[in-house]
């Protein structure tokens, strides 16, 4: 097949490739991504989430990107390179996809680093930028999502959030080992089917069914220590990035509490509106961002109400409350990386009684100097009972050191529980 090059000299993912190529996506959120690729599949894109996690992934990352680059870039690119070299794929029939936010942190550059890495060995492999602000515009770009398609994908994420929340609350307490996972897998399949029907917007109906089903799982009533996980989005969510942190916490008898992806999406949309407020940066996308923001807020409020009425599970935080309370210590203008969301989530967790919080961050992450380590003190001043620990992730950081520090936090938690 002929390779079409963009004006920057890199191959384009052309509309024709939609039929022939498999799109590889790095693993981040196992539940969400499984649902997401099924939605993409409905629109004719053949996608696959990479599950390779061997040491070779890190080695490929080290080889192919600058060592001082952030760990998420290193792992994603490592996963791609390892997959391409594995022989599992026809390298002439794969494309790679990375998200791009266009924000002021280094993440906007991952895609370029990936292309540099591919240049020598796999120059024919196109890279797709997943973004919502019109980056990498090209008439021959074969990746396109219409508004209804995007909406459907976002609904998929909402269902995934609900499943993740319920699953995390059940699996650490389940009496029959594996029962939560079994139910989760069944529900993932149901959501995938549901998203093929027109009924998917009827979230309330399906949320109730999910809540009922998960409530049926037999759970221990022994109180467990709840540990919130916040941090840089990739290491917070990705088991490869955080050395399977959730599993470790469960093995320590804790319940991991992971804020939803929707919180990040709302944060992203909210920033677009904040930029209008502070700097007057009004664009033609502003009304769309505002529409989505309002809609999701409404949905979130309904979900919270629904879960409270149901009574078996802890609902997510109210985003507007989170946003209002964070302004006690940081401005909403801080919006590079995870920006004000990290201290906001720390505060919200502590406020809702989850006083133990792990802040996961890639070693040397620039925004996190300000928003994570830089804000811990302020959060602690507001919530004296907060027990926050920052854990750095890095190819050289060893699990034993990370786990030892987490154990210290847990010892503090147990001591304060009496």
């Amino acid at each position: 097949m002929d390779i079409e090059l963009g004006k920057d000299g890199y191959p384009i993912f052309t509309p024709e490739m939609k039929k022939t190529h498999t799109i590889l996506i790095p693993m981040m959120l196992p539940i969400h991504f499984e649902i997401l690729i099924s939605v993409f599949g409905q629109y004719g894109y053949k996608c696959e989430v990479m599950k390779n996690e061997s040491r070779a992934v890190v080695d490929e990352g080290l080889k192919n990107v600058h060592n001082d680059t952030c760990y998420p870039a290193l792992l994603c690119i490592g996963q791609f390179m390892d997959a391409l070299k594995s022989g599992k794929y026809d390298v002439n029939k794969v494309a790679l996809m990375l998200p791009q936010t266009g924000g002021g942190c280094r993440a906007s550059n991952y895609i370029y680093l990936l292309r540099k890495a591919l240049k020598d060995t796999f120059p024919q492999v196109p890279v797709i930028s997943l973004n919502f602000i019109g980056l990498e515009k090209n008439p021959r770009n074969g990746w396109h999502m219409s508004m209804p398609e995007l909406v459907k994908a976002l609904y998929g994420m909402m269902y995934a959030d609900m499943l993740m929340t319920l699953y995390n609350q059940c699996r650490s307490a389940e009496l029959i080992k594996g029962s939560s996972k079994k139910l989760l897998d069944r529900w993932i399949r149901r959501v995938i089917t549901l998203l093929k029907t027109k009924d998917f917007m009827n979230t309330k109906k399906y949320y109730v069914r999910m809540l009922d089903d998960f409530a049926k799982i037999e759970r221990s009533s022994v109180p467990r220590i709840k540990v919130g996980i916040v941090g840089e989005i990739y290491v917070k969510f990705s088991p490869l990035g955080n050395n399977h942190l959730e599993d470790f916490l469960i093995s320590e008898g804790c319940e991991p509490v992971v804020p939803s992806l929707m919180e990040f999406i709302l944060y992203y949309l909210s920033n677009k509106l904040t930029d209008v407020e502070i700097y007057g940066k009004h664009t033609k996308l502003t009304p769309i961002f505002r529409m989505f923001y309002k809609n999701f807020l409404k949905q979130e409020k309904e979900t919270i109400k629904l879960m409270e009425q149901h009574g078996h599970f802890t609902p997510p935080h109210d985003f507007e409350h989170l946003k209002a309370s964070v302004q006690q210590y940081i401005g909403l203008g801080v919006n590079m990386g995870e920006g004000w969301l990290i201290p906001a989530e720390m505060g919200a967790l502590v406020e809702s009684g989850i006083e133990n919080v792990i802040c996961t961050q890639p070693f040397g992450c620039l925004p996190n100097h300000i928003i994570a380590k830089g804000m811990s003190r302020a959060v602690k001043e507001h919530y004296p009972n907060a027990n926050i620990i920052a854990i750095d992730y890095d190819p050289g950081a060893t699990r034993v050191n990370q786990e030892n520090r987490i154990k210290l936090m847990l010892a503090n938690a147990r001591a304060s529980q009496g």
Partner: protein
Amino acid sequence: MRTYSLGIDVGSTTVKTVVCDENAKILHSAYQRHFSKVKETVSEQLHRIQEKFPDAQFRCAMTGSAGLGLANAAKISFVQEVHAAFLAVKTCFPQADTVIELGGEDAKIIFLTGGVEQRMNGSCAGGTGAFIDQMATLLGITVDELDEAALRATRTYPIASRCGVFAKSDIQPLLNQGAAREDVAASIFRAVVDQTVAGLAQGREIKGNILFLGGPLSFQKGLRKAFVDTLKLTPEQAIFPDEAPVFVALGSALYADQSKDSPKTAQALLDMVQGAKAAADVVTGEKLFRSQKEYDEFVARHKRCDLQYADLRTYEGDAYLGIDSGSTTTKLVLITEDGRLLYSHYASNEGQPLDRIAAKLKQIYKDKNPNLNIRCSAVTGYGEDLIKSGLSVDHGIVETVAHFKAASFFCPDVDFIIDIGGQDIKCFKIKNGTIDSIMLNEACSSGCGSFIQTFAMAMGYDIAEFSQMGLFAEHPVELGSRCTVFMNSSVKQAQKDGATVEDISAGLSSSIIKNAIYKVIRARSVDELGKNIVVQGGTFLNDAVLRCFEREIGRHVIRPAISGLMGAFGAAIYAKEQAKTHGQEHSGLISPENLANFSYTSKNVRCGGCTANCSLNIIKFSDGGRFVSGNRCERGAGIQRETAVPDLYAYKAESLLQIVKKQPSVKRGTVGLPLVLSFYEQLPLWHAFFTKLGFAVEISGESDRKMYFKGQHTIPSDTVCYPAKLAHGHIETLLEKNVDFIFWPCMTFNFAEPDTDNHFNCPVVAYYPELMRANHSGLNADNFLYPYIDVNDRRQVVKAMKKALAKYNISGRQIADAVDAAYAAHEAYREDIQKKGQEIIRQARAEGRKIIVLAGRPYHLDKEINHGLHKLITSLGLAVVTEESVAPMGHMPELHVYNQWTYHSRLYRAAQYVTTQPDMQLVQLVSFGCGIDAITTDEVRSILESHGKLYTQLKIDEINNLGAAKIRLRSLLAAMTK
């Protein structure tokens, strides 16, 4: 049967056990180094306990960083070590307010009064006990000797305390410059204290009764003294318990006592430990050699690259002396006219290079044939200047050039040289007979030769024996390729998982190679290195390292048998060439008579030549000569230049300070502006704005190390860049100046530059005011204004400033006028700098000087950040201009990055411009920890190299070691003049 409590503390280097009764009375305790044989050592101690208490049973708990894995595997209760210490303190020393515990690799602090808080060092804050061990090795003495020396100190030097690797870079030059060992020893302890105060306490005051725990603090009096002195403690306040070394084990025993575990006999526990199966998740690599035969072939192949020898006692005729005074080792060679080796020496300089070399020279004079004429001599390496003036060596030569000369001797068409020494990794690409690019290891990745050595010693082996052990290891472990501190913990993990010493030895060799290839050379494919590769440096004498290198790059390389002596050999060849060129018949080297009486004294003074106040070390030799080091410019050395070399950095710094002298006549109030980060460019703008409105402007002033220490206690992230850390001292200074308010805007965006994708500030520059507000209790809504500003939009600026200054009731009209004045001042300043840049370029060309574009960020103008590098460049006779002064003359080249940061986009245009100017080169300044430069450096390099320009990068941090920078700059100069 009696029931006791048993605590086992397995640290990174030692095993501690304590048996106590229900009243916490210690009945038995033991403290033993485990040399990585964790299971064996624990078993041994359990065995002894069994013998001592045959009729008892125990509730047992394990603790410690290396105990976690063993406890899990043996199914023994585990208690986190800080928590264990906490339990013991509460029982034994209820009066303690704070606990400081230093262990082998961890540092911990527990605040007991005013809110219990327990903290540990982060992953980068590295060694403490291990750090002291490393430093002792560096000084060539034992830890006890180090301790004794420290007590005799008369002064201390500032040493970077964040991490062992940094500290090394500070200590090495001190040693090479002849600083007293006692003072260095005390400085090392002082650094440990600083790290504890700054890194661990992070703003929380250490006060009241303080309990000191852990091995180092119980054995090292010098360290104790450093803590007591720094924290200003009375004897009553500083508690050093006798049981300190085993205190955590005691806590672990107390934990066991409270547990509901059923008691077991010592034998049962012993069985549990011995039966523990390590988790098999250790990643292993291939064997280095499959058979003895394969190894023999390997040895035979490398044997071919050897020199011929001649006898020093019988040889008559001309000989050439080469000296390489390296950072940790000293190398000497004496060669004949035809390159035969008469004499060679390779040994640690034990921190006293001058003495070592003088001693060896005496030996040469004594042994040599009377008819052997040392015709010429040359010296290279870190100690070049010192040795040259001390021993009257004829020539000095840049290290890189010396290595190239030596490598060419063995392989005339060499393409690539890699040298791994004790402290440095140096790599050079050779193109068309000259050094084309140089790669040196940065301050953070010095995983070099001395690293294996320190490890070998920690495990109780000598280096030769240790590296030999790796050759036939069954399962070399994968240890990663990061800095020393990280490797320490990787090794710890591997041990936990049951790796043998052999496996670790092989793994370390492989790590060194991976570090060199992926971190220093950053090679993506072998072809980048070229066909003919010469490897050298003492570390490559280690066959395991050599084998790993050949394996990793997949081809054979040349390792000369004098691998460790190549610098000295190159210097000797250079001496020979120089003698020929200049017709020199006899070397001016110090005579045997003068050498016999040779001695020197050293003292420290502050230079008063300029405001930099360099700390000078002046060495006076017995012949009356003197040598000054520590100076950045020629003034400190007492040399006056006739005309100053043009330097835009100096001009810019001066003009910024001039601008703020202008103050308004009527005063509405006083605003304080911290001279940090964005203010290095926007000071004229904000100064004009505020003076126009009638505010007097007070700036925090120029940075120095003192200013850094002043603000150190409010820094929340110890891995942020130095320019950001310095800001804390500036805020402190402004608060002292009693200004009405401090102004420091948050700026997501900076000024838009042409042809870019966006114009962000980096996250740190953009939002550091937010961090400051959250971490400095002296700042409040009233005295600290940090509005969000978009400088590209005047209307927004007016609006935001009106709101920020609401208290002063200034009309919108007035604010708008002030903003107009501000922009005019900003423009005028920019134009002036550009004009001056042009002028400097013209002047340099008229004087026939080459020009260096020293490209960084505006705040690299800070002398505490750039450490006077621009002066170093001008002292080499090169003119210096800045990136933003030349960027407008270049155009945006085709980029392979997302070009979205204002400061960084200038680098690309400046680099493009340099490629069009034959007499210019670009040197990029990179602050350590600047993540964004991980992206820009590769891009700037490729812009320059695609047009045949050299790429030179200088990494800077709080450490003030200009040695590496000097080598790079001199190599650059050598390449430019070729």
